[in-house]
């Protein structure tokens, strides 16, 4: 990493010889602004040795002119007045570099997007403004310093947080490409929500049947290390080398010894509701959440285990031939260093309000869609035979209520959860297949069947199964005290009438909300969050899995609600993003970094408070406390420079002096560089 030469006094030793190049950009600029006038005005500014107007500065001819000026006229500062730097800065940097000048001695002035194109009706004033802008550029160019971009090495290992379908896919892809991958999952088994689902829309293939092979595959991959029943407790560092702390929760079962025979569970006397089955079925105190669990290692839940409660029992110990049970097991902290991180922390299903209109907590026969998934799942507590909670009888008249916890501004859930329409349609299909005499109604606002094969399924359930679609948001649910049937009152908006219909069971199509588990991770990495509460990508269209934190990628429902195909696709994208970094092994960082002038620093620590990336620390240097910037952490926002009362921190390419010089020049004071040193 190269330090910039003398950042503090920004005037570099040799006398500056400035070259100004005003681009016509065909008629884009020239058609409004008189480029000749601008060039002429520029030539009068002290220090300007070359001032030309060019038809197309970015063309080879134009670039040649610039190189010539550098080689022949000894120009050592280049001001290109053309289009937006966001477009051609790179081009011209390369150009001057080609002529042997440090690329950071080139400054661009934006005459097209921010002058000629927006003042087409006022050519004179536009020209006047252009002259001002060029002057600003010239004054700034005096204070430019030679810099060189920074390079960091990228550790060839990745951390994937979250063992749902997205995490599994990402880990698989990275592992396949031969990089060490740590897949961290807080539950005893990987699989996530997809493992709970019955069938998948629109094709109707069984979720676990397609998921289980992947789970096995990822377990078998030599490069992937699954850390189940574990949580990430701390992340420090930056792209290329993140220092990660992971807490392995005690299973009280030695993983290497347990073969998953399950004898312990058979003998275990404690029965508790199985949260994997949404509390419908039961499991033992020593358990695997579901038969296909990966890793197939049993876990004792301390809360319910008799031994932990009473100190007696130990039946599991007696029956376990491999002596895998170890009540003394303690949690352990594992330290890792990884080059890249993929966050795939998924979602939580929305939990209906306690005193809500839909009476989820008051009426037994009002259930959520996730609960339904378990109730119709062949591997579920009822063996796939749908019964209603109140009396275990098979419901014949079933209503789905859409958009529960989605598209609701009152609940701050403005967004559409993107899966509810289809899973309700899919579930109604499954129910109809099981009991053709069932009557199903779906209360919806809009049906969003946008994906491949979705509309076809929507059409099929209407045509083949006669599922009724009622457009209207139910206003009131009432329960018959005897039968516990639910009556829904709603305006059927297409009918224009208020109807009351009785159903045996009501299913709330609950939306997807950001997972509780995402919060801590988001804070550790200080990832930006979009206003729906999900993690925010760098660019909604062009950088969909990257984040503002370099080296950190997101995928699956952690980024926004989405279905399985989308999650998988995104996981693959994130994986390729991560591997690209690791294959290169090196990562280039623009030199925007903040630099401290120790002589001026008082060690007040204001900068450390404002820095969003914890990049500044206060260190003792021979008895005095001074702020020190960790270059690799610094993203170059410059907030610290703005906060520093001493102006002791300078942000490369945006020093106080450089900005001050622009200010004065903008307001028609050519001597900006001289009088405003120190930036006010």
């Amino acid at each position, binding site marked *: 990493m190269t330090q910039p030469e003398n950042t503090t006094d920004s005037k570099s030793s040799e006398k500056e010889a400035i070259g100004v190049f005003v681009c016509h950009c065909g008629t884009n600029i020239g058609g409004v602004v008189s480029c000749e006038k601008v060039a002429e005005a520029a030539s009068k500014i002290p220090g300007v040795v070359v001032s030309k107007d060019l038809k197309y500065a970015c063309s080879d001819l134009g670039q040649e002119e610039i190189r010539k000026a550098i080689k022949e006229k000894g120009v050592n500062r280049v001001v290109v007045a053309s289009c*937006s*730097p*966001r477009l051609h800065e790179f081009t011209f940097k390369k150009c001057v570099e080609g002529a042997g000048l440090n690329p950071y001695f080139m400054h661009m002035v*934006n005459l*097209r*997007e*921010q*002058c000629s*194109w*927006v*003042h*087409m*009706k*006022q050519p004179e*004033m*536009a020209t*006047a*403004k252009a002259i*001002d*802008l060029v002057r*600003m550029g010239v004054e700034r160019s005096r204070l430019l310093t030679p810099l060189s971009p920074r390079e960091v090495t990228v550790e060839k290992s990745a951390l994937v947080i979250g063992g749902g379908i997205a995490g599994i896919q990402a880990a698989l892809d990275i592992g396949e490409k031969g990089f060490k991958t740590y897949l961290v999952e807080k539950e005893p088994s990987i699989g996530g929500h997809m493992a709970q689902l019955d069938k998948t829309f629109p094709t109707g293939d069984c979720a676990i049947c397609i998921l289980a092979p992947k789970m096995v595959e990822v377990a078998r991959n030599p490069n992937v290390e699954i850390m189940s029943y574990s949580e990430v407790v701390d992340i420090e560092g930056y792209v290329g080398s993140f220092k990660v702390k992971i807490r392995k929760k005690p299973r009280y079962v030695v993983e290497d010894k347990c073969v998953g025979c399950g004898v312990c569970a058979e003998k275990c006397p404690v029965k508790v509701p199985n949260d994997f089955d949404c509390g419908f079925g039961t499991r033992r105190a020593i358990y695997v959440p579901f038969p296909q669990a990966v890793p197939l290692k049993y876990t004792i839940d301390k809360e319910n285990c008799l031994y932990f409660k009473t100190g007696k029992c130990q039946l599991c110990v007696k029956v376990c031939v491999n002596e895998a049970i170890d009540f003394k097991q303690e949690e352990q902290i594992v330290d890792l260093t990884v080059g890249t991180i993929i966050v795939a922390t998924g979602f939580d299903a929305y939990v209906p309000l306690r005193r809500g209109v839909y009476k989820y907590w008051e009426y037994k026969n009002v259930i959520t869609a996730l609960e339904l998934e378990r109730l119709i799942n062949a591997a579920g507590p009822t063996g796939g035979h749908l019964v209603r909670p109140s009396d275990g009888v098979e419901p014949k008249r079933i209503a789905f209520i859409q958009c529960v916890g989605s598209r609701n501004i009152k609940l701050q859930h403005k967004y559409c959860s993107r899966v509810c329409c289809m899973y309700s349609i899919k579930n109604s299909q499954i129910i109809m297949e099981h009991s053709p005499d069932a009557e199903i109604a779906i209360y919806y606002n809009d049906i969003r069947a946008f994906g491949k094969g979705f509309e076809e399924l929507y059409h099929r359930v209407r045509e083949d199964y006669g599922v009724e679609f009622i457009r209207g948001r139910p206003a009131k649910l009432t329960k018959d005290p005897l039968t516990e049937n639910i009556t829904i009152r709603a305006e059927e908006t297409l009918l224009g009438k208020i109807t009351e219909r009785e159903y045996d069971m009501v299913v709330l199509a609950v939306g997807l909300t950001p997972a509780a588990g995402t919060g801590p991770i988001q804070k550790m990495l*200080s990832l*930006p*969050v*979009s*206003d729906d509460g999900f993690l*925010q990508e760098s660019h909604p269209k062009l950088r969909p899995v990257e984040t*503002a934190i370099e080296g950190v990628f997101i995928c699956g429902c952690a980024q926004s609600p989405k279905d399985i195909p989308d999650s998988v696709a995104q996981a693959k994208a994130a994986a390729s993003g991560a591997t690209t970094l690791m294959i290169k092994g090196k990562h280039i960082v623009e030199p*925007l970094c903040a630099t401290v002038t120790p002589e001026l620093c008082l060690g007040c620590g204001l900068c450390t408070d*404002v820095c*969003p*990336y914890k990049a500044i620390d206060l260190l003792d240097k021979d008895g005095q406390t001074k702020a020190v910037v960790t270059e690799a952490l610094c*993203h*170059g*926002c*410059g*907030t610290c*420079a*703005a*906060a520093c009362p001493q102006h002791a921190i300078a*942000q490369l390419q*945006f020093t*106080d002096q450089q*900005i*001050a010089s*622009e*200010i*004065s020049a*903008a*307001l*028609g*004071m050519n001597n900006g560089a001289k009088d*405003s040193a120190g*930036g*006010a």
Partner: protein
Amino acid sequence: MSAAGMEFEPKIVAFCCNWCSYAGADLAGVSRFQYPPNVRIIRVMCSGRVDSSFVIEAFKKGADGVIVAGCHINDCHYINGNMKAATRAEFLKTFLEEIGIEPERFRLEWIAGSEGEKFASTVRKMTEELKVLGPLGGEEPWSTR
């Protein structure tokens, strides 16, 4: 600059963050949204970079209005730089009032990269307001620091 007879043309300095507002200004250009040429844009990486002293400096040097423009809250490329800009703006507003500069002369705006029209209209609005307010008068009494 408001010589007798000719209409007063206010000078506005706009600090635009590289990721949202500067891009917004560019978009205004690309979509040819016209606005008065009274504004001079200074590019910074983040609205959080804008030191209060820059704004004061601008007024000292004769700006009639100053705009600080950044990404919308939660959209900041640097997580929360714009929040800091907001905090500084609060203080700045009161300070400017204390030293006798109408707070209308200073604006903090959230302009996304997709909001070209908003950038244009912001400049339009401010230019009109400033024309009404007139030039920032008097020898700067606060400059003795």
